[in-house]
């Protein structure tokens, strides 16, 4: 996928979520999933890390997450922590261990509503900050040496996030979200033996990019308890050093409890 395709994908996701930014807000706190949320799921991840090789590694990866969110008078915020790890990412019969970690903080401001299929859709938009780290250990013989072959990539990003809620009927709603980084401080594994390259750089979306988009169905079991299931796609692309791209599709279930 070339750079234009990435731009098209992200712009489309944002267009879907934020096409009615100028309208009045009717977003109410009951729509925003407040409280503590615990998430679990399963996903499929594909990674190409040219610090190791040009080859594509892929496999199944479990997903765990926890978040805390609150809606105040005029805005909502969400702090989330996510963890993914698998010991068996494969390229034919060569494997690698992958661990990914995300810490994110989102602020969401109601920006308006729109009508979609004769239903009201509530839109929020706001800044987001995310720390992402990807660590990889290559399972390869090492001639009796204790040196592990490993690679890492990290992004500390500031960006923008958009979310939309569409109530279906009492308690049930469809929720979509998309976010992308605008500026990042990137970190990357460099040649440990012979390199003058810095392993930290300031990155634009063209040299280091993080984005995610997802859609889920939420059902309020009680006033305090909500359950939801959904899909989320995450991608990270870094080209300031040896090229790195990872993408993961996740099927996620979560339970939220509002205190």
């Amino acid at each position, binding site marked *: 996928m070339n750079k234009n395709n990435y731009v098209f994908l992200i712009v489309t996701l944002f267009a879907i979520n934020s096409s009615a930014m100028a309208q009045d807000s009717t977003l109410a706190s009951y729509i925003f999933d407040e409280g503590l949320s615990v998430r679990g799921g399963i996903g499929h991840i594909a990674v190409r890390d*040219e610090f190791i*090789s040009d080859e594509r590694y892929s496999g199944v990866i479990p997903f765990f997450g926890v978040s805390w969110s609150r809606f105040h008078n005029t805005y909502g915020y969400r702090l989330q922590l996510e963890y993914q790890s698998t010991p068996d990412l494969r390229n*034919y019969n060569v494997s690698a261990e992958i661990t990914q970690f995300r810490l994110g903080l989102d602020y969401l401001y109601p920006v308006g509503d729109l009508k979609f299929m004769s239903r009201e859709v509530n839109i929020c938009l706001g800044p987001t900050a995310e720390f992402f780290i990807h660590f990889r250990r290559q399972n390869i013989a090492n*001639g009796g040496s204790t040196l592990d072959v490993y690679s890492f990539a990290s992004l500390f990003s500031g960006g923008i996030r958009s979310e939309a809620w569409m109530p279906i009927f009492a308690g049930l709603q469809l929720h979509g979200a998309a976010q992308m980084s605008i500026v990042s401080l990137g970190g990357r594994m460099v040649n440990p033996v012979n390199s003058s390259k810095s392993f930290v750089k300031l990155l634009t979306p063209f040299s280091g990019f993080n984005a995610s988009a997802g859609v889920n169905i939420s059902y309020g079991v009680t006033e305090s308890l909500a359950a939801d299931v959904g899909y989320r796609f995450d991608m990270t692309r870094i080209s300031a050093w040896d090229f790195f791209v990872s993408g993961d599709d996740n099927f996620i279930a979560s339970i939220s409890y509002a205190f």
Partner: protein
Amino acid sequence: MPFNMYKKYCWIALPPIIAFLVGCSDLVVNAPTHNDNTADFERAWSITDSVYPYFQFKHINWDSIYVVYKPQAEDAKGDQIFQVLFNMLAELKDGHVEVDTKGGFPVRTYTPLRTERDRGTFDPLVVRKYFTEELSLAGGDRMEYGILPGNIGYVRIATFEQGSWILDFDNIISYLRDTNGLILDVRDNGGGSDATGTFVIRRFLSSPLPWPPIYSNGVLKSNPPLQPSGALTFSKPVVVLMNGTCFSATEDFLNMIGQLPNVTLLGDTSAGGSGAPQDFFLPSGRRIRVSTLDFRRYDGRPIEWNGIVPDVLVMQTEADIKSDHDLQLERAIALLK
């Protein structure tokens, strides 16, 4: 809510299900469109064939290695070639030979047995227990030095990597010039550059020192003798501490400094690897590192596999170090008292 109501709204489950099944990750992370595996194998084999100096010494028939690994390379998909290259080059049993990741992470194909044996048998923190004062650091923390009870100087050189940091060695020698003798500790020094090692040796020379034999493609190289250098020459007794983790340029250092009449090599035999390795790029961008020169001991035998043998053999185990005893250092102190 009646069942038909659920049916009416079940369409909302479709977007996440469809998205999951489509799998965006496969769209954004592409596999490479070409495969250089066979070309990588051919290049790795031919480079090694043309530069590797120890086929005869190690009784390796490199042509037969080609016959064994060529079919494996042709069958290798993706990064499987990594393992094929690794296994082929591991046949050389050479601690300098590597297959690097594309970004340059070294993957050693072999670790000398004496290095394995002596890993963990040296601990600089145990060395400190023999001193009454803290050791001083120099050379960008690559060297440390001090004076042991009995007025015995001690210098540890942790690496021979290239750089101007070694200039600090002159200051250390100047500081230790009034000691009764010197312990030069190069245990756990995995090598670096011969230029750094010879910088140190020249501070102990009172007359020119001929180089040991070095062969390139079977031809003896001629090097001018090493000349004395430095503001002062340390001519008092010197004990050089060594073990099986001493490798590469450190072995060249041991080979040469061991020729000096006031120097005693003490400890255990070094690893056995001294091949002046060079990096070579393969068509895919991967790199291999292969030995190119045959360094010999002064008795004419290759340093490769044989290592440098100490004048005074003192074996040391991990258990000795864990019980806070550095037997090699203790013996060196006893020799210099």
